[in-house]
């Protein structure tokens, strides 16, 4: 097992990794940018080291700074968290070249699974259905031809992307031509890679993902699904499990196909296979995330399995240590992403100092957050301030707990999206479980909030 990990990330996930390290008896060093000097993970870590200025390109996205920090602080491993360099095979390779363990898939596995377009082809050969789509788009001409082939509307996607960033839905050849160079430069800025591909846009779909864990010895299990259909602008804001849209037989079949395919394709470590599920219940594989997901606690609540600890153990070369029958899917869990953003004003991100703070608690409630009284939310990074996860034996119970917990949550000094969660817990489509990924974007955040306030 590794003995000292550099946490090459920030915010709630840095804290989450720190907790896994502590539980495993591993020392944790937090790498922080100047903007995160007063952050909770930096304060709670065994050691904290400043790696650069607020600008992520010179700190959390700087492979040399992170590796240098790991070496200077005597670490033997690096945990990349999510986002930033978490799925960068060159970073994973450099980490290994300096004698450090990368907590995630080995560089060659990351490399193999880095291109979304390639992965779709690979996993299709191992039995996963995929959305009709293109390979990498060399130029505008090819993009137009591919779009014509699969049929408009299409979704333009960065091959190196994640978290919904840089994706655009396009309805016509003219729009495609206009948007293509913009997407390319956004992809380059966000991921350092401007490769794009496109997929058929499935109207009224759901977003369901299967969590998997595979050790170095080819032993893999799935940890059931998460339904991430509640999104705004392609970004998830609420996730739950089990998916209210899937039958017991349907989820079991999909999960089993997924784990079989990724093991056969040579995947290693924890990962998530994302699917679109259409109104007839057909699932189409769209991408794999080779890292811990923001929404991993949903799965932890249902299975009792610590996914970050599992990730560290696998990367250290340990066998998985449990079998498929040891992975229950017990009760129902919902995660609410608490973002520093204003749902009434187009989800505009906010920053500021937290003046008062109260975290929800009690039975079946988990709140993963780096917030505290006096914390200054920096304006430089993503807006995720915390994750409220509730569990109960039934979906109805989890919804009731969610309402109760949201009523306890206090974050003063920074605008948050709590109102959108309250509105969701009053909205008929959510309560009935009959919703698709466009629930919020169809009307917009402000209109959705207003509708929730109307009686009846």
């Amino acid at each position, binding site marked *: 097992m590794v003995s000292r990990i550099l946490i090459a990330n920030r915010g709630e996930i840095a804290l989450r990794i720190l907790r896994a390290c502590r539980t495993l008896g591993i020392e944790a060093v937090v790498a922080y940018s*100047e903007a995160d*000097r*007063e952050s*909770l993970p*930096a*304060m*709670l*870590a*065994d*050691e*904290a*080291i*400043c*790696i*650069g*200025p607020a600008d992520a390109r010179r*700190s959390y996205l700087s492979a*040399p*700074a992170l*590796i*240098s*920090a790991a*070496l*200077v*602080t005597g670490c033997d491993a690096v945990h990349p968290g999510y986002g930033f360099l978490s799925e960068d095979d060159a970073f994973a390779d450099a980490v290994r070249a*300096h004698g450090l363990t990368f907590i995630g898939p080995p560089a060659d596995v990351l490399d193999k699974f880095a291109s979304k377009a390639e992965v779709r082809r690979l996993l299709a050969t191992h039995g996963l259905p995929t959305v009709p789509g293109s390979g990498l788009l060399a130029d505008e001409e090819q993009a137009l031809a591919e779009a014509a082939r699969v049929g408009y509307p299409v979704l333009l996607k960065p091959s190196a992307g994640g978290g919904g960033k840089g994706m655009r839905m396009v309805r016509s050849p003219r729009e495609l031509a206009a948007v293509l160079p913009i997407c390319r430069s956004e992809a380059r800025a966000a991921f350092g890679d401007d490769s794009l591909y496109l997929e058929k846009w499935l109207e009224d779909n759901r977003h369901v993902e299967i969590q998997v864990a595979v050790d170095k010895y080819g032993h893999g299990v799935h940890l059931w699904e998460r339904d991430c259909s509640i999104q705004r602008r392609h970004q998830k804001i609420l996730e739950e499990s089990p998916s209210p849209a899937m039958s017991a037989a349907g989820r079991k079949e999909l999960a089993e196909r997924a784990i079989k395919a990724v093991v056969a394709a040579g995947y290693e470590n924890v990962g998530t296979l994302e699917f679109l599920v259409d109104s007839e219940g057909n699932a189409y594989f769209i991408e794999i995330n080779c890292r811990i997901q923001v929404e991993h606690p949903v799965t932890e609540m249902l299975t009792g399995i610590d996914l970050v600890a599992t990730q560290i153990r696998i990367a250290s070369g340990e066998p998985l240590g449990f079998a498929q029958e040891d992975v229950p899917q017990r009760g129902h869990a919902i995660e609410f992403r608490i973002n520093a953003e204003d749902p009434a004003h187009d989800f505009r991100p906010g920053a*500021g100092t937290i003046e008062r703070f109260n975290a929800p608690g009690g039975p079946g409630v988990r709140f993963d957050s780096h917030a*505290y*009284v*006096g*914390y200054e939310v920096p304006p430089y990074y993503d807006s995720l301030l915390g994750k409220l996860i509730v569990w109960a034996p039934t979906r109805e119970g989890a919804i009731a707990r969610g309402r109760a917990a949201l009523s306890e949550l206090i974050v003063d*000094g920074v605008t948050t999206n709590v109102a959108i969660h309250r509105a969701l817990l009053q909205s008929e489509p959510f309560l009935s479980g009959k919703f698709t990924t466009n629930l919020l974007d169809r009307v917009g955040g402000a209109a959705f909030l207003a509708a929730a306030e109307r009686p009846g």
Partner: protein
Amino acid sequence: MPATNRTGDIAPAERTPAERAADHAALARLADTLVPALAGKLGAGSLGEIEIREDGWAVRVRRSAPDAGRRASDRSADRARHTGLPGHTGPHAPHAPAQAPVAEPVASSDGPVHAAATAPVVGVFRPGLSVGARVRTGDRIAVVDLLGIPQDVAAPVDGVLVEVLAQAGDGVEYGQEVAVIEAAAPKAAPAAPSTDGEG
């Protein structure tokens, strides 16, 4: 020792830019009379924090952590374990904020002007010039190895290298103060804090 005096560092509650400017001016005047009075009367004792309330106002006087004025080299020694805790009362910053890589010269009330040279990257410190060397702004004083590639520690002002704060082979973090320059010709310290990121 060149303490980092930050007179007039003002952190008001939510305000518009215009209001902030007004507060700034008002407080710059107040700071000159109030703060020395408080510090003088109470600074000698072992008092940590005092609060005085009257009507709708509360005045809280707080002494920072004992290590607030310590040097970067000291800081790096105990950086191995943060003891800082979150919360709003009391000194919750266990260490003084690091200076930007190119620190501005700051004057203590009467002495010479000192400026700290800081590590431009996280890495391994290698000394260069010796104490007593004359330098010009931008001169290489030492280097920090970033995965074997040396990065210059530049002199922030013209002057004389009076102290090197890190040892050869030390790991240093980004922004850590690694050397002190005594400026050749002290300039008047700015009356108000300079704007962020410029100058």
